[in-house]
């Protein structure tokens, strides 16, 4: 291995790939300031997240009034209004629901290649950080890692976490994940949605190195289940800039095993960069058309920067 590549990999390991451990308490204090943006997403169970345009009989914040109807709880009749208007009115309150968070993690082999990029490690840490922020709002979280093996679609699910105290259980879940096989975003999400019917918010964390119809199908499945979806596109630095890669190459696809022989010239490098940018832009455009949030993160960005700058800029998070 050339010395430059070795150094690149060494520095990538030291400074990149989300060096912050999401299970590090030091990171918790920074994540405590953040919360997820839900927009129209909400679950069916009562929770702590106020949901606008949705009322309930009991609560704290009055949302509206309605005429009394037989069967309404008489405790919520507004007697002051009856005195002034001589009409029976009952108060309606802002509904507070829990927002189930579904995090889909692409566990295909491409997420581990190039190894210097540590895309999968970064994706796991990002998923953990998102889970922490969700649990901080007492919203339930489940992480599902999907990939396609020779035996079929493999879907590894974490337990549904409802409390921040269960957060460290994710550590064991992540330790059991190993990227391999082909990308199975659409099939994995379909299988997940067959098992779990809670509405809420879905994050898809992947490098999206599949034909467009695959991830388009995955987004369509999420929207058909009335889930608000966000796509987080993980890009590796080496994969993007081909740092330290030149000359005659025998390249092998990490998922399909197909081999090509190329000679990487300066012109080829330019064409590669152009194709890469075009592909990322195509994914963003598709998300925009489909009503799916889109954020592009570099795997050597820190988790802190990603959670406090990139995802808020993409409209997925906000300060409390």
């Amino acid at each position: 291995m050339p010395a430059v590549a070795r150094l690149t990999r060494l520095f990538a390991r030291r400074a990149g790939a989300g060096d912050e451990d999401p299970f590090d308490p030091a990171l918790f204090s920074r994540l405590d300031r953040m919360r997820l943006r839900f927009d129209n997403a909400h679950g069916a169970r009562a929770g702590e997240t106020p949901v606008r345009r949705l009322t309930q009989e009991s609560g704290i914040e009055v949302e509206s009034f309605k005429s009394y109807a037989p069967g309404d709880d008489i405790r919520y009749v507004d007697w002051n209004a009856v005195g002034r208007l001589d009409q029976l009115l009952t108060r309606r309150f802002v509904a507070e629901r829990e927002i189930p968070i579904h995090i889909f993690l692409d566990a295909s082999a491409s997420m581990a290649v190039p190894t210097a990029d540590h895309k999968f490690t970064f994706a796991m840490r990002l998923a953990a950080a998102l889970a922490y922020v969700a649990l901080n709002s007492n919203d339930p979280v489940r992480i599902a890692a999907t990939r396609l093996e020779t035996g079929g679609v493999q879907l590894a699910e974490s337990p549904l976490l409802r409390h921040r105290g269960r957060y460290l259980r994710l550590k064991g879940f992540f330790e059991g994940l190993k990227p391999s096989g082909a990308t199975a975003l659409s099939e994995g999400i379909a299988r997940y949605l067959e098992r779990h019917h809670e509405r809420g918010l879905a994050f898809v964390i992947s490098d999206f190195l599949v034909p467009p119809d695959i991830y388009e199908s995955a987004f369509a499945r999420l929207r058909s289940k009335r889930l608000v979806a966000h796509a987080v596109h993980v890009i590796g630095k080496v994969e993007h800039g081909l740092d330290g890669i030149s000359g005659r190459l025998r390249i092998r696809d990490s998922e399909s095993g197909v081999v090509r022989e190329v000679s990487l010239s300066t012109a080829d490098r330019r064409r590669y960069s152009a194709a890469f940018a075009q592909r990322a832009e195509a994914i963003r455009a598709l998300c925009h058309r489909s009503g799916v949030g889109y954020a592009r993160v570099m795997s050597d960005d820190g988790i802190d920067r990603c959670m406090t700058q990139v995802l808020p800029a993409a409209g997925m998070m906000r300060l409390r």
Partner: protein
Amino acid sequence: MGLLAPYGLASLAFLGVLVVLHLRRRQQRELEVSSLLLWQAVRDEPRRGRFRPSLLFALQVALLGALGLAVARPYWEERAAAVTNGRTVLVFDVSASMQAFEGGERRFDQARRKAGEVLASLDRNVEVMMIAVAAHPRVVVSFTRDRSALARALEALEPNDGPTRLSLGVELARSTATGGGSLEIDVFTDLPSEAIGVSPSAGERLRYFRFGRSDDNVALAALRVYQNPFQDPQEARGYALVKNYAREPKDLTLHVTLASRPVLDDTLHLGGRESRVVAIPKLGDSGRLEAWLDVQVSRQLRPLEALAAAAADPANSAGVRAIAAMLADAGGLLPRRAVLGAISQLEQADRQALHKLRLRLGPLDVYVDSLLKPAAQYWRAALLSVRSGQGMPALPKPGAATLAADVDPRGAALAYRRVGRTWLRIDLADRLASHARKVRSAGGDSPVDVALATSIGLDEAAIDQLMGDVGFTRAGDAWRWRGRRPPRDDRRGAASHAFAELAKLKR
């Protein structure tokens, strides 16, 4: 070429190491990529094999090769220049045809320049002989290695008015160079090689340097008079040899005069390369025998012929005929004051008739512009020298605007006007004088065309002289018109043309 240390070539084995390093550098590298989707834009490697030399590799090979060769210490084997016995003979055609002008230069001058180049290219040890061939060959410089002597002889060599027999010159060169080693004969002529009729012999190199764009040349090659010692001199007979050097047949007229009296006007038709001896019937008298062909005269001096014809044409007015006759007699150029009287009598129609003859009635001179050209000058000089019985004057350098005072006045007067200490070309003097006259007509006060005078290089004295001839005199920084001085009567006596002689008789 040899090597002082041939074992040093073993160092070239490093070339193999270089190739191995290059191949190793070009070795294919295995790389696992996340997906080939991103690599679709990258072209497959062309199947040209593993070894693809680059410019850098070529430079490295060249450097290593040069170093390896240097270690082997190569040397170049060169034999010292031996004293050669080679001999070169330069044979010059100095016949009359070599005087022909082409491109403002004589053929002989072109030959002289080429001979100089040949001399410069010869090895110092080669002996050179120079032969000039007219009717008979003549050794100008015998075999020598002294290049300066050869150059001096080359500069002094001039063509004459006779014919040439180049074959004799080549034979002379062969006979004088026998037993002297290899021989090279360089012939400088305007004749085609087949017309010379000489082929190279064994051990000899014969080169022809031919000058002249064409061989369209007809010459009066010889004019001789034979008289039997026991005959009365009046019984002497003359012979003229006329040669057609052209491939095409020619029609020409031979004119022979004895003491200015025509004795023969013979029209000849000569086939290609044909020579003919024309007998002059009987001379019958003593005197200067002159002969000429009208071919060159009619070609080069056609305006002069037109003037002579106009002078004899009764359809023209007396004034036109007088001016045409005087100009034809003077060779196509006269000062205006010499024909001032005739000019004053001209009507408008007469001026148009003179204009058709290309005659320019300038403020200072009356002349035909085309007769001022170098080739016409040459033939005008030839005619005038025949008439005056003097030799050919030295002609000025073609195209010069001014001439120094020390040139041959006979040659300069053919196309130049004396202005102070210099000679100014007639047409330029005419332009300056015309400008002055126009300025005066327009009421201007600066009659001198300063730009033209400066570009020509006229000094103050010359300008003063010229403007004085036009009719101006300097008054401080300005010029004042004082008018042209009428011709003095005593100058009439100096004229030599027909009307002047007539005036003398009347007096």
